[in-house]
């Protein structure tokens, strides 16, 4: 079985808590708050004002730049204010507050479950529809999908890679989506292939999801050009560059994009959103979120409308168990502990993980013993121990020379470090500073 070549670690996947739990719909709360920063890039600009009545699926904020995404109302109701809200990490972000009065939708939106496989649209029309629907990468980075579908001039996409890996421990939302909506995902893949003008698509799925592999294979056999690639278990296989390496054996050059090797990578959840946007006219207003943890009362996969406070979602899933040490947004490897669970669910949230007090305990960092484990684990072939030290001491020129910008924040180095050193904390600081310097330089030019 294939996998990527450099580095990687094997954390316990802990998916048994929420795996195979059917997707449950979370009831719509009485009030929703829609943050305007749910993607990478410029914040969206609100197009509604206080007192406006909105229907489900109606545009409420438009993209604030080329790399940005539209935001739609997930409910019908009245806009009460356009203000700000404290996000999960205590920072204020602009947001639209809506009082819910029901679940009425714009007339063109098809809310039925019937599968619609026929699409007569041209490539450009599909991309335009995806753009209008405000679809972003639901794998975690939240990069606007329509930007990926428009390769810069001179570059041509050759293969579409679909990320069904879900290498992050605990999370099962993509797995369950593949089981329940495999047919729609295959149609979504065909739409994306048409949009990109490619004839080949590979669905990468790790072998700990045999039922998903079988289900996707069953539908893919009837579809020209679509193959399912079962992959060996290894974290971070779901990383864009790692997945390309695993599926087609090509390495994205340092500082490059997947399109440099002719690949475009999209997550299965994104593909499902594309299907809904193009075939059902339904913009991105909800997603599947895994709520899990060793002590969680009702771990499972929940379909949540954006704007629903995470606390409502957690309560629906049985509440916060006793002796919870930390509540993490996302998975245990790349997620961040949250300090405010009243934050509304949005495009960025893929999981809510509640871990015990003793699991959450942090070890006191010890001295680096130069064992080189972090270098062996780094999937980008970097030297994390050195980068962390250089970032700590502000040696930004050296950091840039040593390709700190290639770091994908996967956390393998910290996971493997026997001295419990906070390598990634410092590497992130270095990345932020080096990134700012590179941008400043580009602007000067």
């Amino acid at each position: 079985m294939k996998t990527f070549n450099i580095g990687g670690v094997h954390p316990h996947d802990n998916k048994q808590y929420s795996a195979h739990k059917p997707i449950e719909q979370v009831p719509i709360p009485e009030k929703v708050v829609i943050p305007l920063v749910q993607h990478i890039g410029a914040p969206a600009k609100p197009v509604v004002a206080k007192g406006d009545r909105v229907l489900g699926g109606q545009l409420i904020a438009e993209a604030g730049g080329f790399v940005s995404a539209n935001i739609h109302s997930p409910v019908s109701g009245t806009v009460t204010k356009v203000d700000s809200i404290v996000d999960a990490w205590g920072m204020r972000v602009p947001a639209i507050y809506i009082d819910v009065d029901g679940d009425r939708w714009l007339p063109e939106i098809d809310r039925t479950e019937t599968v619609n496989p026929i699409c007569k649209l041209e490539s450009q029309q599909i991309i335009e529809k995806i753009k209008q629907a405000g679809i972003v990468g639901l794998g975690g980075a939240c990069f606007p999908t329509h930007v990926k579908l428009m390769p810069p001039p001179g570059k041509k996409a050759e293969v579409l890679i679909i990320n069904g890996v879900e290498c992050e421990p605990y999370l099962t939302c993509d797995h369950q989506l593949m089981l329940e909506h495999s047919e729609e995902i295959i149609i979504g893949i065909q739409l994306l292939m048409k949009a990109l003008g490619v004839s080949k698509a590979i669905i990468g799925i790790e072998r700990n999801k045999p039922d998903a592999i079988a289900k996707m294979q069953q539908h893919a056999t009837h579809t020209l050009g679509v193959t399912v690639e079962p992959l060996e278990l290894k974290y971070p296989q779901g990383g864009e560059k790692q997945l390309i390496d695993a599926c087609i054996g090509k390495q994205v050059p340092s500082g490059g994009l997947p399109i440099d090797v002719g690949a475009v990578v999209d997550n299965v959840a994104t593909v499902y959103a594309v299907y809904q946007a193009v075939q059902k006219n339904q913009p991105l207003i909800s997603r599947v979120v895994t709520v899990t943890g060793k002590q969680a009362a009702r771990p499972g996969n929940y379909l949540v409308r954006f704007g629903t406070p995470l606390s409502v979602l957690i309560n629906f899933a049985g509440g916060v168990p006793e002796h919870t040490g930390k509540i993490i947004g996302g998975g245990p490897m790349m997620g961040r502990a949250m300090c405010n669970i009243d934050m509304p669910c949005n495009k960025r949230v893929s999981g809510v993980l509640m871990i015990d007090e003793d699991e959450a305990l942090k070890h006191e960092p010890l001295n680096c013993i130069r064992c080189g484990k972090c270098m062996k684990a780094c999937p980008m072939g970097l030297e994390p121990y050195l980068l962390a030290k250089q970032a700590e001491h502000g040696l930004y020129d050296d950091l840039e020379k040593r390709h700190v910008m290639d770091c994908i924040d996967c956390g393998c180095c910290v996971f493997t470090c026997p001295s419990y050193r906070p390598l990634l904390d410092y590497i992130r600081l270095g990345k932020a500073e080096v990134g700012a310097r590179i941008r400043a330089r580009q602007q000067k030019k």
Partner: protein
Amino acid sequence: MNFLIIALIALGVTGLLASVLLYFVAQKFKVEEDPRIDLVQDVLPGANCGGCGFAGCRALAEACCKASSLDGLLCPVGGQEVMTKVGDILGMTPQAADPMVAVVRCNGTCTARAKQNRYDGTLSCKVINSLYAGETACPFGCLGCGDCVEACQFGAIHINPETGLPEVDDEKCTSCGACVKTCPRHIIELRKKGPKNRRVFVSCVNKDKGAIARKACLNACIGCGKCEKECQFGAITVENQVAYIDFTKCRLCRKCVAACPTGAIHELNFPPKPAPKPATTEAEAKAKVEDKAETKVEAKAEAKVEGNTKAEPVAKEVKQ
């Protein structure tokens, strides 16, 4: 024996030849350097802190020797004294500069700013700042991990265990600006030291709306603008819901301190205010505005203070 003599002669001749060669080479490739650079460098403190904006003391010395005047060149550590010496060597007069000092603009003490969560990660303000808002609800305030303490080469900053906030030792601070650069929340500012180290400043940088700021911290500036109205010298501006006192315009009259409803404006090193006659401290602070209209406004201000019953912040400050 013979070998010894031959070896000695051979070595001696080689040494002689090499020295002659080196002499000519040294003459030929001599680097012309201003001899004054060394003199200037000797006068400078040699801390190599970079507070002057150059890579180190030698770099500042070179810049001084190259420059046609000493305007804009200042060693913050040595201050006016050292710059006068440098001026003497170079035959120039240094620009008169006010002595500066680092000022911590956050008063979110443990009692005023309740903790809402517990952080157990890396103890570094920079790291916390990159992760989230911090243990309190104020996303602008001091994180209290002491990055500034570590940055200070002169031991002038320490964290007060009672308040959890950094404090600057006026005597030790050389205003090199290392703490200003290192603070990820931009709380520390270099301000004029002031006569007898007396200073008035807004001890808050919270840009949130008044109600939100106040909810997060009892001592926050709520941007009400009372101080702006009170100030007769136009030294105070309220921008982004936070007041700022321009130290070049401030005349240290301290009316804003009394006007502030939350006690966000701090006065430092003033003698305790004699309650009935505020005019005397005014005179001490060298604010030479003494007409009738002035005293009237002042009387009004006093009345306001009493009306608000907010004389508490002043008392707190004196205690400190």
